């Protein structure tokens, strides 16, 4: 199933070995209340990074900034080497997003939803056909492309949303608490699939969650608490610096929150 592999053409940031997502000294305020302060981290191609933080840590604010729904005056965000504030449309072209709340049109079919997204990214009809076939078959959803989204269960809707986020072959994939509301098998399948995307397709994945059991041993972590990055690095590094035996204890120590 070989398609238009635009991804074979490497972007400048890839040739230079730069991170796919780079956040530097990012700050954001709601009125006088700081929501994020001096947030900085990087995600390289092929890395699966978990953004962990208790509720109210600033994850949603950070997510809104990364997707340009909000704009900050302090700090910078670079996606695939493009500055989000100055070269917004170029940066967004390399970004795939799965929001926490489903954003599919319930009354349209799976295929109509995907076509709409493909057109927003300027894909031709033929390219859209090929990409829809690829992304849906990879998650065994192609047979169900003519069904209305309303007829699908939560796990299958998530699959469609991930297929949609990948249609335009982004270098960075953001997922905001994507497992919320899913049953255990669907959750595990989703976590595994996202890891596979990072490792096999060299996509830089940033996955926000407050669930510790979604961490794999070779993942990278960014732990956010009260709007600041408390720890950042591979699971091994975070455990070494905190001197904790497992991620759960480290998370608890850094955030003072009970693990769930």
């Amino acid at each position, binding site marked *: 199933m070989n398609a238009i592999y635009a991804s074979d053409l490497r972007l400048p940031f890839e040739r230079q070995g730069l991170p796919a997502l780079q956040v530097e000294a990012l700050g954001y305020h*709601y009125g006088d209340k700081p*929501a994020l302060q001096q947030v900085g981290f990087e995600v390289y191609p092929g890395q699966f990074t978990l953004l962990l933080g208790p*509720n*109210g840590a*600033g*994850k*949603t*604010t950070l997510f*809104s900034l990364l*997707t*340009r*729904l*909000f*704009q900050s*005056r302090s700090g910078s965000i670079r996606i695939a080497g493009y500055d989000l504030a100055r070269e917004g*449309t*170029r*940066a*967004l*072209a390399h*970004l795939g*997003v799965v*929001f926490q*709340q*489903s*954003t*599919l*049109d319930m*009354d*349209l079919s799976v295929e*109509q939803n995907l*076509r*709409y*997204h*493909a*057109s*927003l*990214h*300027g*894909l*031709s009809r033929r390219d859209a056909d090929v990409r829809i076939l690829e992304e849906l078959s990879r998650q065994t959803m192609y047979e169900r492309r003519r069904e209305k989204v309303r007829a699908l269960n939560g796990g299958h809707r998530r699959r469609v949303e991930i297929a949609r986020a990948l249609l335009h072959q982004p270098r960075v994939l953001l997922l905001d608490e994507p497992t919320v509301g899913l049953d255990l098998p669907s959750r595990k399948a989703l976590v595994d699939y996202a890891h596979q995307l990072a490792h096999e397709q060299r996509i830089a994945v940033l996955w926000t969650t407050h669930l510790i059991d979604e961490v794999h041993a070779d993942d990278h972590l960014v732990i956010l608490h009260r709007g600041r990055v408390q720890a950042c690095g591979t699971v091994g590094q975070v455990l070494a610096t905190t001197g904790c035996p497992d991620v759960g204890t480290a998370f608890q120590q850094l955030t003072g929150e009970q693990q769930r």
Partner: protein
Amino acid sequence: MTPLRYLRALGGIMLRELFRFVHQRERFISALVRPLVWLFIFAAGFRSTLGVAIIPPYETYILYEVYITPGLIGMIQLFNGMQSSLSMVYDREMGSMKTLLISPLPRGYLLVCKLLAGVLVSLLQAYAFLVIAGLSGVDIPLSGYISVLPALILSGLMLGGLGLLMSSFIKQLENFAGVMNFVIFPLFFLSTALYPLWKMEESSPWLHGLAGINPFSQAVEMIRFALYGQVNPYAIAYTTVAMLIFVVAAIVGYNPSRGMMQRKTGAP
């Protein structure tokens, strides 16, 4: 980004709006029934009370049904503009507005695409109404069906722009009922849709003044003239300026750094 990509996005957004429109059959029917009720019941009853003198673009005495037909087309587009605005607020609450706004195209362009898609839907509604009105005896010249098209596009853009602007500062769906009372009704009743300006002057110079500056009046007058293949330059200019003001203000309203998106999408 090539022009082709821009066109594809426009096509996709229009197609989605059409799909949604087709799925909401009730919306189409109510959009059609509302003006027909006015035409067949209100106008028929009102016919004898209101004598319409010969005023341009009409060349003879006309029936009241003929007089209010352009106003009812305006009403269709007014309601459609508010409906689009409602669906944008709904989209924002449901999150599908986000998928639009994170597309790699300038935000202003995406909003204009949304606006055009709404205009397309309003054209379908307006023509369905015109055909029914024509068949039921409202005298419209055949060429009028074509000459009215540019006017309908412009008025659709203006009223859609107003809806877009409102959607940029309406925070929640619940606030929407107020919109009916404070926007749709004043715009409609304080306009030339139901009675000519000179008639209002007889009753109150105040109302006359307000109806004159009401952009909806000008849109209706523009449609009225266009239906008879005539041009009303003042109405066209007025509608165009109003449209530009609404659209630019709406785009500013949706700008992430200074606009109201921040407050609306809210803190976590």
